[in-house]
């Protein structure tokens, strides 16, 4: 957070804190309170929706769990506030873990259906379990007491505000830490996350649990705020509203969550009154017209594309003055406005504004200033024990249905060498990589790495034991910067837990600073220093491949698998790549190289194995292999260099 947004944040919260002093109308105080409570939930929902990219329609259910934990604890046991708040968070987080279980198996629309069912079941359970929840009758919850004094409307408002600020800071810190990067990485590329030692399985559960914790807190506060809870509140409509709020406000933004919460609470109320509606519609028309004009003048869009939204909002404003009574039209107009926002502002309001005023050049993030002077080499040395067998694969068989993609292949790789793996397209080279990194479990055969079998272990486990890789079709985390991509690779260097992250303990600060330092060092190593803060998806193809190498090196691997690193590179880039591969070997890291560019293979490899139709047809020194009749016939062809 930079100083500018910090100041505007403090001013904003000071205004919010002062709100009760300006108006004595409890209606407005209650409304702002509700917005803040929803915002707490949306912070959490954004972790799941915005960062990990999973759709959850179960958050109204989690909200309900929070409310009812508070309600039941108070009603049955008369528990005090300081017990109820942690209990609500804890119980709901538990339910969040439950909700995460299906999320591990299904994605996309299926996940949406499953979470929807989860929410519905929660609502039904609350309704049916009347021995605990009083069923449809609901529970009355008076405002809580703090230190023996019952809080009034204003005091409660300030308490909610304080918890909002705490939630905001905690969520923001989580999302900017290694946890947040792990969440974002899952969305960018699950396969790559696993191969960077970030277990997709574990971090999806974390995301749901943390998200549910905030839903629990919000639910608990909601029970106190309404002073009465009943099952009907936590219905499908509410869950859709939450999701809409995140999307409308803007994904991956705390301001977006606050805005979204404000919209879903205030907009329906504004539409109650015709005068209000006229003001809203006119303001909207002016805003869109001005915004459109700026966008067109900055060449971000064409006048044609802006015509419809501008004319549409002007028509809506005109319509508002033509209307005599709003009651019949209220819901249609609300629906129309939401449709409009979702259709035209796909990045949400915050995303739209950000695009509008975005500066040219690299985006703000970590300052790319490295400490002056000589710094240590960013790559871990793995030279110990050179010459021993590092990887021994024996009789590896990988069968897909009737197809034997790898058929009884033996490969032995000595520590500290560069081992080439070549062969025609479809001969099983990439399959071999996937078997070595645990993406596929071989049908038969044994693979021993550093004296330990890798067969049957998970990808993230294998990655952490020292095998890093790049991918034939680049698997970067596109929305993250180059530096953040490498920092995901450095995830294993973090020992700090969520408490360290939330409190910014010295341990976390030290680890984060170290990861920035090393990350920048690795990026420099592959020659991308000036692109550290560029989003990975904006890098040209060849540079993306280099970034993948930097990310893989971040794992401190003993064995690095490079899958066609030179594909799509031009001659000068290939020279640079060869230098980099040699430097990696000089650090004692063993390399397995799949490549079609013979000049690369011949230039750097110590040994080469050739696959064809899943079988090893040749092996030896590069020159021997190049002269092998079988290899020429199957792979090299007549005139190859």
């Amino acid at each position, binding site marked *: 957070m930079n100083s500018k947004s910090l100041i505007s944040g403090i001013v904003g919260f000071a205004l919010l804190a002062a709100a009760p002093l300006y108006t004595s109308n409890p209606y407005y105080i209650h409304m702002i309170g509700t917005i803040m409570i929803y915002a707490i939930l949306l912070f959490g929902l954004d972790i799941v929706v915005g960062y990990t990219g999973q759709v959850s329609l179960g958050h109204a259910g989690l909200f309900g769990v929070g409310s009812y934990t508070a309600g039941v604890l108070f009603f049955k046991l008369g528990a005090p506030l300081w017990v109820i708040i942690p209990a609500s968070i804890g119980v709901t987080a538990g339910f969040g873990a439950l909700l995460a279980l299906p999320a591990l198996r299904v994605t996309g629309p299926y996940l949406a259906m499953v979470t929807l069912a989860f929410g519905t079941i929660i609502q039904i359970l609350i309704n049916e379990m009347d021995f605990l929840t009083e069923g449809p009758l609901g529970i009355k919850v008076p405002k809580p007491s703090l230190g023996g004094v019952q809080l009034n409307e204003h005091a409660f408002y300030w308490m909610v505000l304080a918890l909002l600020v705490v939630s905001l800071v905690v969520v923001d810190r989580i999302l900017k830490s290694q946890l947040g990067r792990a969440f974002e990485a899952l969305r960018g590329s699950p396969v790559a996350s696993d191969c960077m030692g970030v277990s997709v399985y574990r971090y999806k559960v974390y995301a749901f649990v943390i998200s549910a914790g905030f839903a629990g807190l919000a639910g608990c506060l909601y029970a106190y705020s309404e002073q009465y809870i009943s099952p009907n509140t936590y219905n499908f409509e509410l869950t859709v509203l939450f999701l809409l709020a995140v999307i409308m406000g803007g994904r991956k933004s705390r301001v977006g969550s606050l805005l979204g919460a404000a919209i879903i609470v205030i907009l329906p109320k504004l539409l109650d009154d015709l005068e209000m509606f006229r003001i809203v519609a006119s303001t909207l028309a002016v805003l869109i017209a001005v915004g459109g004009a700026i966008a067109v003048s900055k060449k971000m869009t064409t006048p044609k594309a802006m015509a419809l939204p501008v004319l549409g909002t002007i028509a809506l404003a005109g319509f508002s003055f033509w209307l005599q009574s709003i009651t019949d039209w209220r819901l249609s107009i609300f629906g129309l406005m939401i449709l409009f926002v979702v259709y035209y502002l796909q990045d949400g309001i915050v995303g739209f504004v950000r*695009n509008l005023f975005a500066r040219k050049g690299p985006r703000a993030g970590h300052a790319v200033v490295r400490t002056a002077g000589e710094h240590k080499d960013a790559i871990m040395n793995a030279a110990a024990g050179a010459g021993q067998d590092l990887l021994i694969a024996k009789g590896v068989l990988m069968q897909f249905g009737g197809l034997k993609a790898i058929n009884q292949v033996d490969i032995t790789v000595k520590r500290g060498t560069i081992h080439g793996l070549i062969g025609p397209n479809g001969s099983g080279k990439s399959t071999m990589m996937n078997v070595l990194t645990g993406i596929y479990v071989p049908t038969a055969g044994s693979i021993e790495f550093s004296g330990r079998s890798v067969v049957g272990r998970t990808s993230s486990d294998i990655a952490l034991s020292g095998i890093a890789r790049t991918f034939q079709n680049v698997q970067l985390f596109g929305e993250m910067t180059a530096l953040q991509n490498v920092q995901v690779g450095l995830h294993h260097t973090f020992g700090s837990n969520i408490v360290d992250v939330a409190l910014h303990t010295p341990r976390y600060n030290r680890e984060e600073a170290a990861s920035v330092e090393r990350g920048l060092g690795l990026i420099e190593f592959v020659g991308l220093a000036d692109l550290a803060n560029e989003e990975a998806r904006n890098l040209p193809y060849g540079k993306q491949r280099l970034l993948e190498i930097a990310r893989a090196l971040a794992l401190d691997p003993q064995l690095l698998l490079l899958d066609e690193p030179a594909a799509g590179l031009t001659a000068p880039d290939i020279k640079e790549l060869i230098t980099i591969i040699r430097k990696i070997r000089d650090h004692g890291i063993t390399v397995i190289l799949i490549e*079609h560019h013979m000049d690369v293979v011949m230039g750097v490899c110590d040994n080469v194995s050739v696959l064809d139709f899943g079988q090893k047809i040749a092996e030896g020194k590069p020159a021997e292999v190049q002269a092998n009749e079988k290899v020429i016939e199957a792979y090299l062809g*007549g005139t190859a260099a």
Partner: protein
Amino acid sequence: MLSIKNLEAGYGKVQVLHGISIEVPKGKVVTLIGSNGAGKTTTMRAVSGMIKPTAGEISLSDKRIDGMESYTIAKLGLAHSPEGRRVFATMTVTDNLILGAFPRLTGSRPKGDVANDLDKALELFPRLKERRTQLAGTLSGGEQQMLAMARAVMLNPEIVLLDEPSMGLAPILVEEVFRIIEDLKSRGVTMLLVEQFAAAALKVADYGYVLENGRISVHGDAAKLRDDPAVKAAYLGGGH
């Protein structure tokens, strides 16, 4: 055939092309070479409408196409075989090819005989013929690349854009891809070619442009570029 004038384009805030001009005459093969990030793929994308140019003109057979949607441009006879073999993975080879002819059926150009063209395309790519009932996603990388090229040819195009057709292919297949490009050329197909193997591309092409940081630094007859010492040093490297 294809004429690009002072084209500017980019992604979001990042401008990649700073006013480039390229002419592709009918029946000729023109190649675009340059290092990574120079803007080769961006040029291809701007021409086929996948990204919208921010300035400049692009015309196909004297008709302005800049700002048009990709599907409209395809109907006018421009086929794009994109970088990275984007085939329809869950459809068969035959269906992929027939879809390649789809824009012909809806546009104003002659519809022709799709079944006959399918046979011809399969003759041109014998490997695909063997695998015509297989799902495209199960093909090897090289076969997918051929499928992407064959699908482009199915449009009966006025011009074909080939983006890195040999990327990630075994040396023996690289030769075959260039043989196919030669073959297409001898049939009078106009092509704009982007290739990592700049030397091979300049061998098959009639004319070449060198892109540097989004600007054209050199252009000329392919044979002349091949002998240009500066181009040689920067892009042709040794051997391939």
